[in-house]
């Protein structure tokens, strides 16, 4: 069997690529190594409502745990900056259902989806990539395709097999741990909470994302190696009575590369999307929308390649040029803001929070906030610029 495209990994990036390819009439195989798509979760599960509309996805009711309408940002001394919208502008998803939905959409569009199917290598002929080696239970077989889409996450191998350096340096890898908690209380169960500070979570932040019914995702990401994420998270929870009285009903771990976009995301007959191309935001760690959007861009370019029969890196480069123009610039800006934030002491953070706590910031998300900083009062702007 020969496919136009084999997509490795059925996360948001892979499923969106497969869905749009199939909708465009391509023959697509979408494989997932896990027995159950979306499991285990390794994500804070927050995403913006406008973003999902942009990528043309209406989430299943059971794929949404709650709706949020803004964020509280807490500085080390507890000063609260409020980013509140008038109406809901964010979802806390149930990724196990959301990822399943996207794979279902791909399947309904005509993609062939296979779970518990593991990619073990690329098939090459005369130096050209002509397919992918797969393993399902104890069956090992080869599948022919014109293009292999690596949507295989931070642990992705497709890029490495094709000679793309997808490694992330230790200093740019945030290690994350998250508890799904039940029986907790929040100041406002419609608002996401972010906590900053060297003692709370050096080189990162703690998040509390409400999932409704007294439940929340409570997690953190850090690049500090003196203590484990678990030690920081357990201490944070112990110090917050509204959380410590609850129970942990789920735990998950993961890595977030905060290095900014990958240098090269295409090669002859190869395309990388999602975390494998480091399309995740290095400031917020948010990657769902970016992965979905870039998956759609990849599908668009590949559909053109199917028409011309040219799957060379030069032809696939259209995808890279587009995603770097549409998403890449924002990732680089986030990287600069992240580096500036890292240079701020706890006193600096408290000072900025003090200046911002009475400002009306509307429903900006964390990323929009940093952009909005450019239009802030001269005193604050000067201070922030002195840090950059």
């Amino acid at each position: 069997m020969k496919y136009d495209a084999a997509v490795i990994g059925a996360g948001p990036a892979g499923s969106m690529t497969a869905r749009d390819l199939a909708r465009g009439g391509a023959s697509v195989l979408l494989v997932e190594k896990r027995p159950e798509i979306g499991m285990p979760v390794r994500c804070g599960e927050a995403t913006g409502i406008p973003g999902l509309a942009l990528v043309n996805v209406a989430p299943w009711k059971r794929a949404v745990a709650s709706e949020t309408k803004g964020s509280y940002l807490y500085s080390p001394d507890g000063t609260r900056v409020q980013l509140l919208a008038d109406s809901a502008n964010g979802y806390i998803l149930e990724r196990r259902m959301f990822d399943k939905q996207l794979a279902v959409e791909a399947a309904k569009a005509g993609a062939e989806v296979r779970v518990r199917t593991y990619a073990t290598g690329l098939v090459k002929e005369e130096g050209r990539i002509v397919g992918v080696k797969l393993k399902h239970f104890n069956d090992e077989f080869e599948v022919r395709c014109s293009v292999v889409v690596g949507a295989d996450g931070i642990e992705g191998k497709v890029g490495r097999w094709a000679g793309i350096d997808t490694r992330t340096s230790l200093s740019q890898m945030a290690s994350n741990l998250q508890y799904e908690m039940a029986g907790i209380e929040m100041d406002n169960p419609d608002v996401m909470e972010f906590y900053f500070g060297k003692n709370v979570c050096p080189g990162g932040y703690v998040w509390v994302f409400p999932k409704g019914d007294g439940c929340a995702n409570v997690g953190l990401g850090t690049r500090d190696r003196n203590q484990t994420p678990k030690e920081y998270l357990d201490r944070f929870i112990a110090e917050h009575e509204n959380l410590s009285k609850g129970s942990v009903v789920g735990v998950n771990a993961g890595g977030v590369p905060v290095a900014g976009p990958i240098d090269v995301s295409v090669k002859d007959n190869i395309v990388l999307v999602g975390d494998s191309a480091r399309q995740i935001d290095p400031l917020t760690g948010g990657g769902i929308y970016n992965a979905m959007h870039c998956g759609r861009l990849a599908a668009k370019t590949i559909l053109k390649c199917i028409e011309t029969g040219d799957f060379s890196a030069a032809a696939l480069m259209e995808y890279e040029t587009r995603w770097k123009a549409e998403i890449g610039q924002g990732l680089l800006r986030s990287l600069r803001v992240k580096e500036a934030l890292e240079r701020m002491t706890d006193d600096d953070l408290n000072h900025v929070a003090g200046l911002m706590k009475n400002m009306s910031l509307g429903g900006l998300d964390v990323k929009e906030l940093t952009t909005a900083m450019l239009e802030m009062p001269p005193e604050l702007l000067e201070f922030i610029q002195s840090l950059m």
Partner: protein
Amino acid sequence: MLSVDKKKCFYCGTCVAVCPQAAIELLDTCEVAIDEGCVEYVCRKWNCRLCVKSCPVRAIYEV
């Protein structure tokens, strides 16, 4: 030599992403494997241990 504590490991892939030797893999059996590519096999003095340091739950340890 490094080994993975299966009772701690979340199969998250952070170690795979930071391994300079591409010596770590998430297997289809929901296990993590470190192969001979690991510098710990080649030369102990190298003391790479990036995987150990990156692991969110310190599931990788020396045996």
